[in-house]
């Protein structure tokens, strides 16, 4: 069960049970849907941008614990960040979830909540669950109108 506990850490279970910013934003600057056809995960990401600042960010939809917790943690982290900071966090998250370079304990600590998603590396079939909301947000900031799809 060790690997499994790495995947389903307490933070992930908590965000799955009580997702943060799980709501619509009326008058959102960007509304984009992300879909994983493989497992049916489907989320809508709402971004309220004020010039360069992510003034508010939220999500709705349904999916597995990994995808929901990932979306929840993402919204909590990005609120108040600049576009550049959001983009940097996206890159950092991507490296955590999909990278091959080993992550040391000190680095894990510095990653904060992003670090809990390092567990998905051991579960290749679940990487797309973790990255769905982030890709959707990324596409939204890039001004793409098509939602993300992980297939």
């Amino acid at each position, binding site marked *: *069960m060790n*690997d*499994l506990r790495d*995947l*389903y850490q307490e933070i992930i*279970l908590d965000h*799955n049970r009580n997702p943060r910013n799980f709501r619509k934003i009326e008058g959102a600057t960007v509304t984009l849907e992300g879909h994983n056809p*493989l*497992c*049916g*995960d*489907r989320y809508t990401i709402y971004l309220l941008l004020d010039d360069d600042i992510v003034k508010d960010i939220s999500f709705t939809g*349904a*999916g*597995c*614990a*990994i995808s929901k917790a990932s979306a929840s943690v993402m919204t909590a982290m990005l609120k108040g960040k600049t576009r550049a900071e959001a983009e940097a966090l996206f890159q950092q998250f991507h490296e955590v979830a999909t990278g091959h370079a080993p992550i040391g304990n000190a680095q894990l600590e510095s990653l904060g909540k992003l670090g809990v998603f390092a567990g998905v590396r051991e*579960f290749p*079939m*679940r990487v797309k*669950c973790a990255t769905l909301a982030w890709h959707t947000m990324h596409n939204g900031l890039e001004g793409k109108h098509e939602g993300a799809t992980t297939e």
Partner: protein
Amino acid sequence: MLTAELAPLDVETLRQDFPILGRVVRGKPLVYLDNAATTQKPQQVIDAISRYYSETNSNVHRGVHYLSEQATLQYEGARRRVAKFLNAESAHEIIFTRGTTEAINLVAASFGRKFLREGDEVILTEMEHHSNIVPWQMACDASGATLRVVPINDEGELLMDQFRQMLNPRTKLVAAVHLSNALGTINPAAEIIELAHAAGARVLIDGAQAVSHLPVDVRALDADFYVFSGHKIFGPTGIGVLYGKTELLESMPPYQGGGDMIRSVSFQRTTYNDIPYKFEAGTPHIAGAIGLAAALDYVEGVGLERIAAWEHELLEYGTELLQNIPGLRLIGTARQKSSVLSFVLESAHPHDIGTIIDSQGVAIRTGHHCAEPVMHRFGVPATARASVAFYNTRQELEVLASAIHNVNQLFS
């Protein structure tokens, strides 16, 4: 329904025929419960394929040399083997395809081109696999025919009254699954065929799941078309079967053009071969057909009635175990049911269930099972599905149940 004088299966001995069932995965003995996706292969099938490539490999039908003659004999022997398995009247009613999907596409394209016109109707059921939906949507798009869908009830059973009302003189074809991969429902195939025939329609039965779980007799059913895949009945992937009545197959145009399906070719005029060759363009999957024949020998050696009796016991035991798990809801509770335990949990998404129980060595499938309309009908994005074969044991179902309890614990 099942007679008591049938000798019970010696499951432990039969399991020895399947090398993969002895594997350890994730540090645990493999509990393989994804048989609706694909079945494991007995040594007899593996050996038949290996023997073909080691001793007989050659192209069929056109060679005059010894190996080609032997390969042709074995390939055509496999066709007769399938005909006997389905109780077809003649071996030329058996067309080898890549699988169920290609068999349905063949019928939808060829029958569709010949018989479907604007204003005609094709009837499907709400519990079809995508492979028995999309080819008919394409055939209807091409011909201007209309697709109609027989709904199902909350147990996952066809609403036969609605089917009766839907049938009319414009109905040209009914396509229905024999045993649902997502729900386990066994449909009343004989009754569907009788009603459709009374309305003047032809019927295709998708037997992809059925053939490894219940005896099938296409003449007793009076099926016009019956299709299945080799890999779901302990045979290789890449080989499947289309059974069609002689008169129908003869009246239908070829599906693909190429070698073997012709009698003569010139730039002015090409004449087509007789059935079944008219529908088998190109070099076929010879080893696949031979492997499939070995699989059918194996299954009939075990006995489909004994298999059905054992699997019924497994299904009842598995249902009881799963129903005792808090927050578990079974999707598909038809009275006539086989081999499939599809479910959702209140505590966890199917995808999470799949990952967590995989860590216990238990292989199940999670997702929409290529039957999205079924998921919509039951209001779930996906289900977790355990599906048994005759080589599964009561103890394996206990491992499954205990693994699901662990999911509940983790997510509590």
